[in-house]
C-alpha cells in the first residue's frame, strides 16, 4: 500500500501508465545522500540540466533547481534536519532525494491542478510560478491550455456560420 510522500513509487507507476498510453513521462531516479552535494553543484554550474527534489515534502520545499541560490547550503541544511528524522520517532520512512530533468514549461506555463472525486474532474486551478520568494505563484481558475490549431479550426467554424 502506498503511504504519504512516497513519490518514487508513484513516479514509477506513472511512467508505466504513460508508456502504455503512448505518452512520455520525465524519468526520475533516486540520488544517494553522499552524492547530493555533487549533484547540487553540477546543477548550479549548468553541467546537469536537472532538478533535485525530496519525498515527504510539499509547496516547493526541499527543491533544488538551476535557479536556486546556494544549492549546496540548501542540501546541507536539509540533510542536517534529515538526520534527526529517526530520533524524533516519525511515522514515515526516512525521506529520499530524487533527480529529474529540468522542465522549463513548469516555469513558463505552470501546472493545472485538477481535483478529482469519484473519477470526475470537479475543478482545475492553473498555477504559474512568480518571480520572488520560492513557492509564490499566480493562481487562476477555469482556464485551460488548448492546442492552438484546435482553436483556429473552431474560430473558422464559427466564422463560417456568422458570415452566411
Amino acid at each position: 500500500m502506498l503511504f504519504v510522500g512516497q513519490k518514487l513509487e508513484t513516479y514509477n507507476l506513472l511512467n508505466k501508465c504513460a508508456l502504455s498510453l503512448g505518452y512520455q513521462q520525465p524519468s526520475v531516479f533516486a540520488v544517494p545522500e553522499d552524492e547530493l552535494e555533487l549533484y547540487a553543484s553540477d546543477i548550479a554550474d549548468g553541467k546537469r540540466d536537472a532538478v533535485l527534489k525530496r519525498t515527504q515534502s510539499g509547496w516547493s520545499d526541499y527543491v533544488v533547481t538551476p535557479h536556486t541560490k546556494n544549492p549546496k547550503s540548501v542540501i546541507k541544511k536539509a540533510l542536517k534536519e534529515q538526520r534527526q528524522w529517526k530520533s524524533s520517532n516519525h511515522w514515515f520512512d526516512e525521506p529520499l532525494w530524487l533527480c529529474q530533468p529540468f522542465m522549463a514549461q513548469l516555469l513558463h506555463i505552470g501546472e493545472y491542478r485538477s481535483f478529482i472525486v469519484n473519477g470526475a474532474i470537479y475543478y482545475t486551478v492553473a498555477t504559474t510560478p512568480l518571480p520572488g520568494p520560492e513557492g509564490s505563484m499566480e493562481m487562476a481558475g477555469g482556464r485551460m491550455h488548448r492546442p492552438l490549431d484546435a482553436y483556429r479550426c473552431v474560430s473558422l467554424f464559427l466564422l463560417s456560420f456568422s458570415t452566411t
Partner: protein
Amino acid sequence: MRFAFFVVLFYNLTRTFLRYDPVNPGNPGWLIVDGNDAHLIDPLALDPERSYEKYVLDMLGKMVLAEEAQYGAVSGLRLFGRWDVSVCRHKATGKYQYFVNEVTRSWDTCLFHHHSDPEGMGDFLLSHLAKLLHHCVTTEFLRSRPRL
C-alpha cells in the same frame, strides 16, 4: 469575398499574436482559453483525443489499475486525488503533450483550496466527497478486494 478576408485575417492573427512557444517559434503553440469563453470555443467537440480531460481521466484509470495490481489493495485514487499536470515536448515526435508532475492524495491537496473557483464547484466537491467517505466507512470499501 468578405468570408475569405476574415479567414485570412483570423489565420494571421492566430499565427502571429497568439502563438506561445519559447523554444521553437515555428511550432504551433498553445493558447489560454478563458473559462467564460468555453461555451463559444470548445475544442473538445472537434478533437476529443487531444483534450486535457481525456488525458487526465485516462491516466487516472491506468493508475488505479496499476496501483491495485501492484499492491493488492483498493487504490485511494478511486475516491479522491489532486492531479498536477503540465505540458512538455515529446522527444520522438517533437509535439507537445501533457505529463503528470505529481499526484497528491493527502492533506497537501488543500493547498489550493483557498482559491475561489469561478465555476463554484468547490462546494459540490466537498459535499460529494463527504457522501463518498461516509459510504466508504459504512461499507469498509478500502478494506475490500480491488475489483473492476
